[in-house]
């Protein structure tokens, strides 16, 4: 993925870079992103249930659970049988060409949706994840009545059809995400 992100000056550079590396896998692996969001929405939840709900193989589910654990954002509740897992909402602030972009669970959800949403998949294939993050940023602003979708497409520097297509798809993601993303303003 290309990186038109710059780290914010104000944040501790070591901590921010550490977070960025930690989350890179989450932002780059749609299946992992989808599992993370499922656990965030339904946790604490048994790993077996996650496997069944998402229809992923046993080995993949355990591999992803291990990765999230290594990132330090997954907790195991071993006092329960079977062991249940839960995850923390991520929060990463990035200073980009589009202003301050905040990466929270709703972005992870959008990334995971590539798997079953044509509008998001086509956009990511053509523009990459950083642009998807920027599109999400503008989607929130459009929903807040700060600009029209076509103005947002201009700011994103993509064709109006491409911009309005992805923003329309992201509006659905944001509406559902208000239920589980604590960083989204209602």
């Amino acid at each position: 993925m290309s990186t038109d992100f710059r780290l914010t000056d104000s944040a501790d550079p070591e901590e921010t870079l550490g977070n960025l590396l930690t989350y890179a896998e989450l932002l780059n692996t749609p299946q992992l992103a989808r599992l993370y969001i499922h656990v965030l929405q339904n946790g604490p939840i048994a790993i077996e249930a996650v496997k069944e709900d998402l229809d992923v193989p046993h080995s993949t589910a355990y591999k992803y659970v291990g990765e999230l654990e290594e990132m330090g954002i997954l907790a195991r509740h071993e006092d329960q049988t079977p062991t249940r897992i839960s995850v923390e909402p991520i929060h990463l602030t990035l200073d980009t060409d589009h202003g301050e972009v905040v990466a929270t669970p709703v972005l992870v959800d959008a990334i995971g949706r590539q798997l079953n949403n044509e509008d998001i998949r086509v956009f990511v294939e053509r523009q990459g994840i950083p642009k998807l993050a920027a599109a999400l940023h503008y989607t929130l602003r459009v929903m807040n009545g700060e600009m029209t979708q076509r103005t947002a497409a201009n700011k994103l520097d993509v064709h109006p059809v491409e911009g309005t297509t992805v923003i329309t798809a992201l509006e659905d993601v944001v509406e559902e995400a208000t239920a589980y993303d604590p960083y989204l303003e209602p």
Partner: protein
Amino acid sequence: MPGVELPRGSIAIVDTSVIYAMGGPSNDKYQAFEEYVTRRDVAVRIPDHVAEELGESPEAYRYQRDRLRSAQDAGWLERAEVDFTDPDVSDVIDRTRERIYSLSADDVTEDEVETTDAVLAGLAYQYATEQSRQVAVLVSDKLAEEAIDDVLAAIGAEKDTNVVEGRDFLINLVDEDNTL
């Protein structure tokens, strides 16, 4: 929220984002909308400007063009020509564009405000004056909705026109179908 009704025999001008929100012909929202406008004899129109924008889109978005085409082929959606030579129509378009600009956040420049959004208001005015039918404009962003509504009210066309939030409208249609 109670569902908004489009009057029987009225005209509905839709923006492309509302078409995108419907998904393709196999989607519930698309089918509910098709069924609704057919049953209530609502004429659905898309301004030429908006259709042209779709025609010039990157090849990867051919599927969006196909959605529009399937609606045209099914006979419930047609392209409509905006009469820019009518000074009143162009005036409505200019005023709407200005209104969008003034309602936009401070970091939006005038160049970033598209005429395409304002054309929807121009076409609504044109239909409301040419034909004595109720006209609804279906858009799916808050700012365009407010700007179009403001201008149509300011020119005294609010009796014959109304602006509808397209995504909510579609969600209500599907919900109503499911409860019937």
